[in-house]
């Protein structure tokens, strides 16, 4: 079941259309990657989900019904442009933000104590935010985003500003939140973390969704039937021993082995490739090349750019 879905959402600004009939479906208890180049409209969509701005048209469904103003209590949002009051103490500030999300004074205090304990930052409670490092501030921001145990969490570039250790800590927390039942929308340019974390994605480019679905399906569609073969004992031109339909895309070698990327025709299987090579070379390994999200991203966006945009 989808926890959140948007149907044909559009938003027009004076000079440009930020969103053009955008639809996404975010399944419950999953991590949803919202991808796209800068200025594609991701932030606009996120702000619409947070009800910071209103869409011109389209429908937003949350927990099986129309999104309502009070739903902000069920949503946690870590914006890309984020910060804290510099002159305010950490504890007081966290209490303020938690209460704005609808927690009672008592409840907010209890939960914050728990999390401060867990992150081992108890000693920060009375310190002013300006005394903390940027990474420390990011921790506090993450903490106040999840303090009200929202059903839907929206992270916009959550890892920017974190060192590798804290990035890992954060990733674990995000996976932990998902396991506890939270649904997460995750917007980033960091494709490695997308690959690592996301179950579903939507790719937005120039105000439109150009690609969406589960990671697995998308990778399947973008597979090109290309294999990497590691071999040895053959020093000639590999293309010479293969049928002409088999294309050698790249060749390289290191101290032990030679490597080649070979694209197979649509009806061929890796067995055909092995059969063709078997008589000439010693094969050490053969792997299918699954496209990286990075490549899919670039391919999808450049394809989109090369096609004339059809105005509806």
């Amino acid at each position, binding site marked *: 079941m989808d926890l959140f879905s948007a149907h044909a959402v559009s938003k027009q600004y004076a000079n440009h259309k930020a969103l053009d009939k955008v639809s996404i479906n975010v399944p419950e208890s999953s991590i949803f990657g919202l991808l796209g180049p800068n200025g594609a409209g991701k932030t606009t969509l996120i702000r619409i989900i*947070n009800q910071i701005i209103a869409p011109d048209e389209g429908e937003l469904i949350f927990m099986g019904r129309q999104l309502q103003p009070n739903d902000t209590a069920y949503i946690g*949002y870590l914006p890309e442009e984020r*910060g*804290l009051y510099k002159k305010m103490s950490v504890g007081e500030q966290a209490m303020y933000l938690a209460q704005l999300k609808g927690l009672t004074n008592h409840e907010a205090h209890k939960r914050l104590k728990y999390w401060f304990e867990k992150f081992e930052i108890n000693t920060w409670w009375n310190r002013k935010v300006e005394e903390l490092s940027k990474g420390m501030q990011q921790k506090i921001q993450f903490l106040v985003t999840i303090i009200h145990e929202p059903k839907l969490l929206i992270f916009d570039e959550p890892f920017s500003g974190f060192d590798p250790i804290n990035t890992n800590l954060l990733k674990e927390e995000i996976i932990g939140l998902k396991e506890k039942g939270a649904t997460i929308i995750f917007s980033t340019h960091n494709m490695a973390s997308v690959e690592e974390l996301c179950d579903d994605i939507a790719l937005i480019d120039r105000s439109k969704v150009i690609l969406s679905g589960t990671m697995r399906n998308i990778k399947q569609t973008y597979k090109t039937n290309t294999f990497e073969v590691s071999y040895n004992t053959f020093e000639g031109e590999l293309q010479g021993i293969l049928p002409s339909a088999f294309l050698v895309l790249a060749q390289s070698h290191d101290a032990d082995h030679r490597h080649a990327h070979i694209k197979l025709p649509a009806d061929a299987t890796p067995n055909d490739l092995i059969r063709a090579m078997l008589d000439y070379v010693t094969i050490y390994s053969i792997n299918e090349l699954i496209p990286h999200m990075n490549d899919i991203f670039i391919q999808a966006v450049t394809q989109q750019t090369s096609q004339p945009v059809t105005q509806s």
Partner: protein
Amino acid sequence: MKKIFLIIQREYLTRVRKRSFIIMTILGPLLMAATIVVPVYLATRTNETKSVAVLDDSGIFYQKFKDSDDIKFHYLESDIGSAKANFIKSGDHALLYIPKTEMALPTNALLYSEKSVSINVTSYIRNVMTKQVEDMKLQARLSELQTDKKDPVSVEEILRSIKTSVDINTMKIGENGQESKSYTEINMVLGMFAGILIYFFIFMFGSQVMRGVIEEKTSRIVEVIISSVKPFQLMMGKIIGVGLVGLTQFLLWVVLTFGIVTVVTTIMTTKGEKKSTTEQIIQQQKAINPAASKALTEQMGSSSEEMGGVMEAINSVNFPVMIGAFLFFFLVGYLMYAALFAAIGGAVDSEADTQQFMLPITIPLILSIIMAQYIIRDPDGPISFWFSIFPLTSPVVMMIRIPFGVPYLQVILSMVLLLLGFLGTTWLAGKIYRTGILMYGKKVSYKELWKWIRYK
């Protein structure tokens, strides 16, 4: 509603706890008290002896005014017309005229002077006159009691019956002998003071609102907050919170200033003098009713008023109207301007960029202060009227006019228009603010602002 209260609370508490707030709260009253007390103090300390001419048509105060170190009295025996005519040439500090009264004892006096009369002169004159009149009333009452031989009357009743309050009206005499009631001067001072106070507070706390908005924008916390509350709630919460800070500071200033001034002036004026009629009564009454005298002593101790001559002139102003109008124009004027300041804060990225948008806001405020000179001279003229009706200038200009007496209809019209102005600017500011706080790193023009206003 709970959320807006949280915002107000935060805005209020973070500001009130700031060191600068506490310092301002203490320094303000000290400065204000100093500006009130120091001239009075200097006036009392001055070595120059002031001569006061006394023209007593009633004849009962002859030789009652005693010369002291700094005041010398001499008695005239002309009529008031020639006394006034000769006043400038005589070089006297003041001319005291006590008119003849037919039925009752005189309780009014006129004090003419070229410059303003120092408070210790008026207060001495009032003390002497009060004592004399009370003495005479007491004598009359006592002899009446002795002849009547009725039931003993209570001390309180006697005291009440002889209690007298003397009015001294101060008038100014110019070079060529024309005179003007110096009450207008008090009106001017009050009006200007109230107007400038409003001007000052709008600027000071309006720009605090603006700086608060810019702070939220540059620290990038604003997007976190507006994912929990509506931008309009955040804006209003800030405006109200800062307004309450202003109100707190203002009230503390009034209370502290009043406190300091009262303490200092009582110390300065309660030198001698006060042992007057009351002691005589007590002595006389002791013989008749020893039990009552104790109560009397206590009662007398508490009745030490005395704030000098300023009070009496101030009494001529309609204070309930003045204070009510002040609070209204102060608050609504602030709210209206604060919304505009918030909109500017939302539209820019740093305080350095605010200049171009500040101009349209500051012009009406500064214009009101520039026009103040003119308005004081002609408080009922058409310019005064229009400036006190137009919402952007009315908070300052109407306050300058009010001590002179403004028809209620005009005050109400001005108030209604100001309320409408407040609603209008807040609506407009809300639209600019809503879009502006999410725009980073963009130089905004007026054209851009107009676009934001038209967004749905």
